[in-house]
């Protein structure tokens, strides 16, 4: 892969990664949020695969495809099943209003940029320069986790953070060992499965997954 093409595709993947992460905050429709998460999975897989192609590293490329498959197909599939199991499909009243959270995201972006400057200065390559994007998505994921009420959108927030950590790992280094990445991916898969079981049980017990209404103990 030639250098300008590599930089352009890498930038494009990073841009899509950032855009989908931010748009999760914008949409209220849970089905649309899951779609955005799937798109972000594609962007993450592409990011890793592009780096693999550039380094001529077959293992990294295959890993990119695997990560893309897990995060763009399998996890969204599981979440869609949880959604289809009869939950109302909207994030009705987030703790922070959507317009305000979009503006908070602007601030988070600046923070991520400021914080990651020392990291970038260590080894300024096109890949490390995109680290602020991974950090931004990490902060956005955390923000979603804190401010959303529905169990499903909190799962998406958690997975956004995980996506961002993976992206940061692959942007700063030429790759995590395959075993570690497999372990992390399995962890995430298990977490989603557990959460799916949990939301089903929550719905059976309380009739909804609005976590704020679970402060008191029920009989």
């Amino acid at each position: 892969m030639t250098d300008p093409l590599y930089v352009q595709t890498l930038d494009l993947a990073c841009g899509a990664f950032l855009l989908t992460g931010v748009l999760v905050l914008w949409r209220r429709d849970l089905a649309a949020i899951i779609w955005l998460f799937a798109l972000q999975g594609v962007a993450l897989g592409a990011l890793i695969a592009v780096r693999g192609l550039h380094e001529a590293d077959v293992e990294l490329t295959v890993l990119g495809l695997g990560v893309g498959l897990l995060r763009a197909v399998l996890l969204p599939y599981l979440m869609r099943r949880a959604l289809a199991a009869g939950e109302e499909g909207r994030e009705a009243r987030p703790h922070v209003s959507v317009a305000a959270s979009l503006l908070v995201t602007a601030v988070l972006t600046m923070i991520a940029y400021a914080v990651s400057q020392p990291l970038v200065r260590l080894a300024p390559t096109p890949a490390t320069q995109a680290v602020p994007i991974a950090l931004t998505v990490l902060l956005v994921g955390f923000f979603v986790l804190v401010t959303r009420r529905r169990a499903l959108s909190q799962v998406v927030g958690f997975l956004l953070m995980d996506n961002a950590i993976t992206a940061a790992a692959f942007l700063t280094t030429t790759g995590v060992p395959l075993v570690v990445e497999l372990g992390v991916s399995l962890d995430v898969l298990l977490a989603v499965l557990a959460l799916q079981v949990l939301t089903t049980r929550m719905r059976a017990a309380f009739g909804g997954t609005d976590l704020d209404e679970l402060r008191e103990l029920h009989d």
Partner: protein
Amino acid sequence: MVLQLLVVAAGAPLLVGLMRQIRARLEGRAGAGVRQPWRDLRKLVRKEAIAPHGTGWLFRAAPPLLAGTTLVVAAAVPLVTADSPLDGVADLFAVAALLALGSVALALGGLDTGTAFGGMGASREMTVLALVEPTILLAVFALSIRVGTTDLGAIVIATASSPLSLISPVSLLAAVALAVVTIAESGRIPVDNPSTHLELTMIHEAMILEYAGPDLALIEWASAMRLTVMLGLFAGLFAPFGIATAGAGPIALLVAVVAFAVKVALLGGVLAAGEVFMAKLRLFRIPELLAGSFLMALLAVAASFFLA
């Protein structure tokens, strides 16, 4: 540049007519024809100029001011040719300020009537404007970082000479932001519905409710030109093909005019077709949409630093 002004001035009502025609056809109506807005304008101009009781000079000054600022913007923005005699004076900031001046003039004119509708429309217009203007500035600013100048003509020429640079996150983010803002600024669905007069949700129509005759014609014509200029600016920034440069011959100019007409008609057609399938957003959701587009523009600026 005179050519560009003429094209915009004559073509703007045709664009509006084309969009209405497309909507009508998609909704299964015959439509009034592409030249209907011109016929409307002619009818309005022949009528007697009349102003409501109790309105002052602000009310009468607003329509010429709106049309005047729009004409200056149409002359300064690279639509047909990137070479403008206003270069060096009219950069991105001046253009955004002129657009804002026109909107503010119209809002003041709406307030001056003292009717409920005028005040409501003006306050809503200001709400939208407060988010639209910074977004325009930021989105075009993101594009200007690559070029190193805020001169719109220079940005367009630089993009035309290296079209591959369009496929970057900066351009994509800026394009999304600018698209939303273009829709908001020109008062189309989902931000405003240009064809309603009875709902409480109208923005632009509420402000001009008290205008009649030649004044109304001037406003309608200026709004059509604003739409054309915004669509043309969008097309020029993200698809700068066929735009004539300084010292271009008559054939190049002709090609540029045709390319401009095709691009704007295409964008207008897509916009009109999209409107058929979309409902108007609730007024309280509009700031959300605009905050989103502002964030896109900000991310575009940020990304041009991240991914430099």
